[in-house]
């Protein structure tokens, strides 16, 4: 059946393969493009209206503009069980997963997206086991199992230089991989803009980036025009937006805590552990709380959400990342609370093992959504300036 037919070629609930996913997304886009009732919901629809056809690049772009707010599904007169079976949040989520897979660096690692929950889980388990084994074998048992307080107690378990080299390398590699993925995505998206054949190129203009950053940072497209998005159910709610903010800004605060601590260490020569009132610890506590409340909220929302617009293929990926964040914050705060007890050594090892698992899997899991979304929003800001909807 050609992709432009109006009724779906495959059972709407069955898991889909690549060609099926793209054909299905194209089919639904053609319906939306003739309808346009959702125009004001988000950036997907105005961007769609600038196109007459929907190739793989266009679909990857549109899919990454989608924030999965589900308004278009709740408001669609053609939502299943209607025979047109329009269910954009689900099919765009499937296309997003394909775009993650396609842009992964190194390419072979794209396969990790196929069963991402499992992959992230196994990798983290291996990293964690390695850390614990390493500490048990290499560290001074007194430092690992005893009660140690004061300057240098952390580094007696795992030497500072080892930490810096390991985490610096992991983080650097993750950033390179994410950067390559973003560039690949930027180059691959949106070949078919109706209004201008030209490629936007790799140099996004400053204004577009600022707009995109603003829209992403405020989760503009989860505000549903002021009432919130139709998630977890039909009635608008701000819950998703707030829990995501807590999670994202919690993560950033924790990251900031680490940066400040590094600055303390090298710039000011002050060594960990730091006082509870010190800048890195305060940042870490605030971030850690966000990173506990946010992910728990997101998990709870997923649990009670309307299942029809959800993409079952994404459950593992999303859950793995949320659990990893949660494990990071819980072990981090536990370490802070118990750092003057005998549990410190093992807790430090476990915390660092989990953070390492997080770093290693950053470019091969849910985390990439932020980078590709930012790139898609930047492109949207540019298109909006110069483009003209049909």
């Amino acid at each position, binding site marked *: 059946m050609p992709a*432009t037919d109006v009724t779906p070629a495959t059972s709407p609930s069955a898991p889909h393969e690549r060609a099926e996913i793209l054909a299905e997304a194209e089919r639904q886009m053609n319906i939306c493009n003739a309808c346009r009732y959702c125009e004001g919901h988000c950036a997907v629809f105005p961007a769609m209206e600038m196109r007459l056809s929907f190739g793989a690049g266009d679909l990857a772009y549109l899919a990454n503009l989608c924030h999965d707010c589900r308004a278009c599904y709740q408001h669609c007169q053609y939502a299943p069980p209607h025979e047109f079976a329009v269910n954009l949040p689900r099919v765009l989520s499937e296309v997003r997963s394909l775009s993650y897979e396609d842009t992964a660096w190194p390419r072979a690692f794209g396969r990790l997206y196929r069963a991402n929950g499992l992959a992230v889980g196994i990798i983290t388990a291996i990293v964690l086991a390695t850390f614990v084994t390493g500490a048990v074998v290499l560290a001074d048992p007194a430092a690992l199992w005893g009660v140690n307080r004061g300057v240098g107690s952390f580094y007696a378990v795992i030497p500072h230089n080892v930490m810096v080299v390991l985490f610096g390398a992991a983080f650097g590699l993750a950033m390179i991989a994410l950067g390559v993925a973003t560039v690949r995505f930027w180059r691959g998206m949106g070949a078919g803009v109706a209004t201008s054949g030209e490629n936007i190129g790799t140099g996004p203009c400053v204004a577009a980036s600022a707009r995109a950053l603003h829209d992403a940072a405020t989760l503009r497209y989860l505000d549903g025009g002021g009432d919130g998005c139709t998630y977890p159910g039909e009635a608008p709610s701000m819950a998703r937006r707030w829990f995501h903010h807590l999670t994202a800004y919690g993560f950033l605060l924790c990251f900031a805590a680490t940066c400040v601590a590094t600055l303390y260490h090298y710039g000011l020569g002050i060594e960990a552990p730091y006082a509870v009132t010190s800048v890195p610890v305060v940042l870490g506590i605030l971030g850690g709380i966000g990173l506990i409340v946010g992910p728990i909220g997101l998990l709870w929302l997923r649990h009670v959400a309307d299942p029809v617009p959800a993409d079952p293929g994404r459950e593992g990926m999303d859950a793995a990342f949320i659990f990893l964040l949660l494990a990071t914050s819980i072990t981090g705060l536990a370490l802070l609370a118990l750092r003057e007890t005998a549990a410190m050594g093992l807790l430090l090892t476990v915390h660092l093992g989990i953070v390492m698992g997080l770093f290693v899997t950053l470019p091969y899991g849910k985390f990439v959504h932020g980078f590709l979304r930012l790139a898609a929003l930047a492109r949207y800001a540019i298109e909006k300036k110069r483009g003209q909807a049909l």
Partner: protein
Amino acid sequence: MNHNELNGESFDVVVAGGGNAALCAAVTAARAGARVAILEAAPRHMRGGNSRHTRNIRTMHVAPTDVLVEAYAEDEYFDDLMRVTGGVTDERLARMVIAQSGAAVRWLGNQGLRFQPALGGTLSLARTNAHFLGGGKALVNVLYRAAEAAGVRVFYDAPVTGLDIDGSRFQAATVGGSGAAPARIEGRALVVAAGGFEANIDWLREYWGAAADNFLIRGTPYNRGEVLRLLLDADAARIGDPKQCHAVAIDGRAPKFDGGIVTRVDAVPFGIVVNRNAGRFYDEGEDFWPKRYAIWGRLVAAQPDQIGHVIIDAKPVGRFIPPVFPPVMADRIGELATRLGLDPIVLQETVSAFNRSCQPGEFDHNVLDDCRTEGLAPAKTHWARPIDTPPFRAYSLRPGITFTYLGVKVDATARMQMADGHPSDNIFAAGEIMAGNLLGKGYLAGIGMTIGAVFGRIAGREAAARARN
């Protein structure tokens, strides 16, 4: 809620129907303190009737709003209505609806409905019509939530199949579900807001003959006119021409029911339209498409087999909203004709005759341009350019019925009138079932929802007051 649970129950206000008009009435009545039941024929996922398919509501406003440009004064709105109906309207009711349209739209906003500026492709309505963010289903969802919050009991799969009317006084409604035993629901007042009979092919056949079998129904399959029939049988005063219906030309491949807005084909002004005999039959360039698509429904309905074919070449692609069904394509007109099941020689002749008569001009699809035919019957008076650039494309057209005009007569309090000239004791009507009071003929885009919202609120208020006495 299963309607079997409600056998023998009694309410202050029973509302028959579950679209815009019914919901506005139910919410208003419940907020006025009445115990209200909504009887909606459709299952939950199909709730909301044709209101579920709408995109906007026409409203007067004295100054620009966040979603409407300039102003649309009461008098201008009224003049527009007079123009499209040729004066066949109840002026008093029309003025009342228009005057209250602004308040009705604000009320919808207060229930949580959001609006958006005119959609791409509907800019001609940017001044007169407020577009629902997310479309009519968003409106329906908002109003069902408001109804439930106000304590209204909503019953799905609950078609009204009988009305116990004593003289002019409503006593009870019978609800019969598929398979389930019928239930009797008593009420102190009844609001009828169950739409027209556009989905009832047998009824349409009474006026259109066998042609009705080729009609497509754009909206819900549940508007079968049972309630209207019951009221007319109980001697309600009828209003509106039963032969009138709003029909637009839509894609012939659309589903029989519920295809909604996306089955539209906006290509007509860019090409020619031929019938089964491969001949043209009307000026495709008479006016802008939004002003003409409604007459094309009737034009196609009058053609043999109720079918038409729009034929365009490659030039206009990208200038109209892409139809949802793919075109039939061919590099030669004869080939295209064969694919469409038309006589290739006749179609070639029709296209050549059209091409020969096209006068040179400056093509501009945004204005009534000077590209027209000379010496051709029927003429194409604008946007006439030779069809000469392959690949050629064709879309089929069929009449798509939007709604019917026959209804019950009401007064300014939405009270239904009886054939003998007296008002009904406790029956009120709102929405399409009484729209014929205002729309003797013709249609003004977006006024269907205005009539439903204004009369729905009046009917709810009056029914609640009647139930209290």
